[in-house]
């Protein structure tokens, strides 16, 4: 469904350039949930934005649904692929109600039956009809993230990209949102890429996982391999050990 070959993203700033992503290649099959894990500066979010066409990139191959993805996406391209951002407090327009936010994609693409679609989307993500006309500041972080997910799915895209969707949420809220994402990807047979710094989160939802470090791809492993520790790269081992928590020095 998604093919990435030799993807690189370079940011130019005043003094020089910075290679955020360096020659990364991987494939995501239809219906698969692919994870990308890394620490800060690893380039994981940048890869996602490059696939979505939000940042300029160079690549030998960048295909979505078998067709090459151009740097400038058309409106039709946008219906293929949607994005959920990390910060629930920044991804919703502060002056628009939930209804406005959900209607917008439908209006842009001229989809009829907006009313029922909005109601269904709200119910789908576990919100109540009473939330429909609220403004973002009247919603909690978890509720906002649900709206962001509803917005991403309202046009029924086959592909969903999630950039640290639960990093800004409490543990209990995170659990609800992860369960929601799980349920939705199953019902709609979504192909998704989930980016996170949290190994446990990624292992919970994803089939295969790419480990990123400072812009480079370290290795791609399965969630099981992650659990059993059957990995080849030393860095991956370090990550796994670190995510288990702190080990006390023997006194």
């Amino acid at each position: 469904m998604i093919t990435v070959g030799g993807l690189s993203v370079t940011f130019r700033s005043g003094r020089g350039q910075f290679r955020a992503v360096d020659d990364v290649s991987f494939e995501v099959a239809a219906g698969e949930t692919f994870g990308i894990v890394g620490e800060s500066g690893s380039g994981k979010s940048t890869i996602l934005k490059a696939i979505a066409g939000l940042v300029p990139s160079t690549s030998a191959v960048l295909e979505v649904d078998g067709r090459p993805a151009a740097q400038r996406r058309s409106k039709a391209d946008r219906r293929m692929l949607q994005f959920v951002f990390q910060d629930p407090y920044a991804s919703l327009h502060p002056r628009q109600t939930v209804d406005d936010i959900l209607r917008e994609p439908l209006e842009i693409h001229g989809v009829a039956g907006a009313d029922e679609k909005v109601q269904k989307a709200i119910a789908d993500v576990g919100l109540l009809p009473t939330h429909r006309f609220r403004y973002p500041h009247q919603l909690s972080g978890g509720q906002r993230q649900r709206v962001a997910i509803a917005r991403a799915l309202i046009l029924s895209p086959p592909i969903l990209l999630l950039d640290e969707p639960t990093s800004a949420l409490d543990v209990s809220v995170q659990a609800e949102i992860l369960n929601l994402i799980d349920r939705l990807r199953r019902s709609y047979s979504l192909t998704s890429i989930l980016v996170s710094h949290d190994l446990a989160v990624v292992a919970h939802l994803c089939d295969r996982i790419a480990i990123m470090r400072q812009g480079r791809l370290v290795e791609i492993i399965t969630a099981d391999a992650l659990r059993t520790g059957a990995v080849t790269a030393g860095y991956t081992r370090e990550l796994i050990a670190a995510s288990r928590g702190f080990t006390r020095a023997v006194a």
Partner: protein
Amino acid sequence: MSEPLLIVDGLEVALPGRTGVTRAVRNASFTLGRERLGIVGESGSGKTTMGRALLGLVPRPGMVTAKTMSYEGTNLLACSERDWQRLRGRRLSMVMQDPKYSLNPVKTVGRQIGETCRLHLHTDRRETDRRVLAMLEAVQIRDPDLVYHLYPHQLSGGMGQRVMIAMMLIAEPDLLIADEPTSALDVTVQNEVLRILDDLVRDRGMGLIFISHNLTVVSSFCDRVLIMYGGRIVDECLARDLQHASHPYTRALVAATPSLDNPRAELATVARDPEWLK
């Protein structure tokens, strides 16, 4: 265990706001010896406010009251601002989440740490420098001479936190309150910083209060854990017994945390029981 360092009984923190008074901490009671106590809670649980109350850092019009709140025999409730200034840094100290926001951006690292040292230990310039460099070494900074002259914005996250720890421990307090000290750090750096804390706390026989929302880190680093919800301490147990906790909220938190070792089809969600707020 010897005489407890900190005794808190019936701590209440009330924060008046536009819509009325919020009881950020309700009737909190616990003791702390020379051990590591973790305080775990989600946002709004009151854990950060409690940490601040223990250092007299709850700003007006907030009100801190308690039946007892004493540290090494000193009644903290009766402290004036002057008393607090003498206590903070010298006898109890706090490390906060993001060194970007808690270090002075216009002073070099060496000067900031030196300031704390001079203020509390009244050392002269040479002695201060010596101690600062020694402290930077103690927090595993490889090039203390170089880092001494750096400004906070030139430090990486992990180094910034180490500088923060150096600054807070140089005056040799007996109690350190760490409020989400590793939450802004990458997971590999986290463990390095925790190791430094581990070594220092053990070597100096200090008491440590570790406030965090991250159950995994707290349960692996601390000896005992307090669970907070809605301003109240709802559960208390040994860190190693967390998996077998009895309180429903604790169990729910543990079950809701995704873990590499316990794969589950669905994560348990927390069904909030209003009983917990009583």
